[in-house]
């Protein structure tokens, strides 16, 4: 098991104390990160005490510590999951060969691009959410927001560690640039488009953490299979923290639906009391899930094929051995492709369909979540059910980007799509209404009227615990 150095200026389990050159480079980057946090992180809450979870190790159980922390004092550390002795490459062309602890020369550019693209999303989401604290529906939720934010900051540290350690001057430059690009900046935007739009309301935040962070889970899970062991071990530990972010979203959307269902049972129009109508929630879900599906990239991708063949990115849970062919050379993937106004079934070589396979796993996961929401609605005795959009709806990337499809996946004309757009996606009126519902509730144990309290508090604390102490 690795040794955790919690006393160091940068807490870590990667032996930074013994690598002076790397330590100096990261200590030079640290003030720039803190400046970025103050300029671009959550506004106006840096002097408050937040009841936060801080990673203090990677072992089984007890990996985190809870206490009040001012966010700029959060101990952003570098933690890799423990190494598995004798680990071999388990997919792609080099199956059975030893894993790599250094970057093979021919993989350098591709790996760097993967790490930079992943790393860029981490500070981007903090920037997108920086104003949300001012309209938090409760102290419990305010704490959740800041927990997500500081951990996305730690994930940036994880990626920056890889860049500094394995990519020399190029890596250091990339690490600098991650602090210079900003979400929505017209001159220096974030790399992926979904990370350039502001998250203005808590409905957006809960949808983002449900659907967009879940894309992150699948990308990280694919990288956790990597033959480049430092990347695999880094992302394995990031997944541990990421689980809380997705749970924040899943529970948040569920709590909104629950509250609306309670009102429906009473015969109260949610609009009359500042709650979110079911059909509006459905439109937000449609928007965020379809935007998140774009992050998987094209369903037919030679880039994805090369990443798999070279052992950089595996399939979801590849290491569990659930796939019949770890080389992915013997099968093809059937997909409906729009051609001349209709859908035509085509087979693409399996390796080129790696993004599609990952998207399928994502879609199944989202289906599980929607089922959970719907069971709660069923229990509450309301008829509304969440329906997730298919993989064809509202896409700007991949095979369906040029077509027009209903949420159910039926191909329609551009005119029909434009005419019915307001049925499926949030209108400006929806956005204005949701924004009007967002008013801060900072009294312990109290919640805004549009969201139900959670079933339980954090770390065995009661729901009415003072999760944020204002000064």
């Amino acid at each position: 098991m690795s040794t955790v150095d919690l006393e160091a200026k940068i807490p870590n389990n990667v032996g930074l104390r013994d690598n002076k050159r790397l330590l100096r480079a990261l200590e030079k980057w640290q003030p720039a990160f803190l400046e970025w946090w103050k300029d671009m992180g959550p506004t106006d809450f840096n002097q408050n005490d937040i009841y936060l979870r801080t990673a203090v190790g990677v072992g089984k159980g007890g990996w985190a510590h809870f206490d009040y922390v001012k966010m700029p004092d959060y101990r952003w550390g570098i933690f890799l999951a423990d190494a598995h002795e004798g680990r071999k490459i388990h997919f792609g062309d080099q199956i059975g060969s030893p894993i790599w602890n250094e970057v093979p020369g021919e993989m350098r550019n591709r790996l760097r691009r993967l790490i930079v693209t992943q790393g860029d999303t981490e500070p981007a989401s903090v920037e997108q959410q920086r104003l949300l604290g001012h309209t938090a529906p409760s102290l419990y939720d305010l704490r959740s927001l800041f927990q997500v934010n500081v951990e996305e900051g730690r994930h940036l540290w994880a990626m920056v560690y890889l860049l500094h350690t394995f990519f020399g001057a190029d890596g250091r430059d990339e690490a600098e640039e991650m602090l210079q690009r900003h979400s929505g900046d017209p001159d220096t935007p974030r790399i992926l488009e979904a990370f350039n739009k502001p998250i203005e309301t808590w409905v957006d935040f809960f949808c983002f953490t449900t659907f967009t962070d879940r894309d992150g889970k699948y990308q990280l899970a694919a990288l956790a299979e990597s033959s480049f062991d430092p990347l695999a071990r880094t992302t394995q530990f990031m997944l541990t923290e990421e689980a809380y972010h997705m749970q924040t979203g899943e529970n948040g959307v569920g709590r909104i639906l629950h509250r609306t269902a309670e009102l429906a049972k009473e015969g109260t129009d949610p609009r009359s009391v500042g709650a979110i109508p079911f059909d509006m929630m459905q439109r937000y879900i449609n928007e965020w899930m379809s935007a998140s599906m774009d992050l998987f990239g094209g369903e037919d991708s030679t880039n994805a094929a090369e990443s798999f063949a070279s052992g950089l990115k595996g399939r979801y849970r590849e290491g569990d051995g659930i796939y019949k062919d770890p080389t992915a050379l013997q099968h093809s993937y059937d997909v409906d492709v729009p051609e001349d106004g209709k859908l035509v079934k085509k087979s693409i070589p399996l390796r080129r369909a790696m993004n599609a396979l990952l998207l399928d796993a994502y879609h199944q996961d989202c289906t599980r979540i929607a089922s959970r929401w719907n069971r709660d609605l069923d229990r509450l005795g309301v008829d509304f059910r969440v329906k997730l959009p298919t993989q064809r709806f509202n896409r700007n990337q991949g095979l369906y980007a040029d077509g027009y499809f209903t949420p159910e996946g039926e191909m329609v004309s551009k005119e029909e799509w434009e005419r019915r757009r307001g049925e499926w996606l949030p209108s400006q009126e929806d956005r204005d209404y949701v924004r009007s519902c967002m008013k801060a509730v900072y009294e312990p144990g109290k919640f805004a009227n549009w969201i139900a309290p959670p079933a339980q508090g954090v770390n065995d604390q009661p729901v009415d615990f003072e999760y944020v102490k204002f000064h």
Partner: protein
Amino acid sequence: MSDEQRLVYVCEGGDCTERGSGDIHDKLKEQALAVDPDEEKVRVRRYPCFGGCECGINVTVYPDKLFYSHVKEEDLPDVVKHVLGEGPAVDRLTGAVEPDIEEMAWMMLDSPY
């Protein structure tokens, strides 16, 4: 994965973790490895969440497609016997979650690829 080899997932979603699924995973793995040190018959792994949160701790056994729920430490000897091929399925632990949740778990594991 060979046809004879079993893959056992222990859920480590939020609710299952609260109920102690980390310990269940460790003890199940330890008991299985004591008999099958090279994991030739069974591999015990963690899984992020199956969605059967109200029935946790949940454990799945593949390719048998058994979805064990409300698993407690005292159930582990019977589960281990079964997954090592030395005992019957533990019927008392099945049938608690909604069928659609079970189906979603098998969809992933039944990958045609």
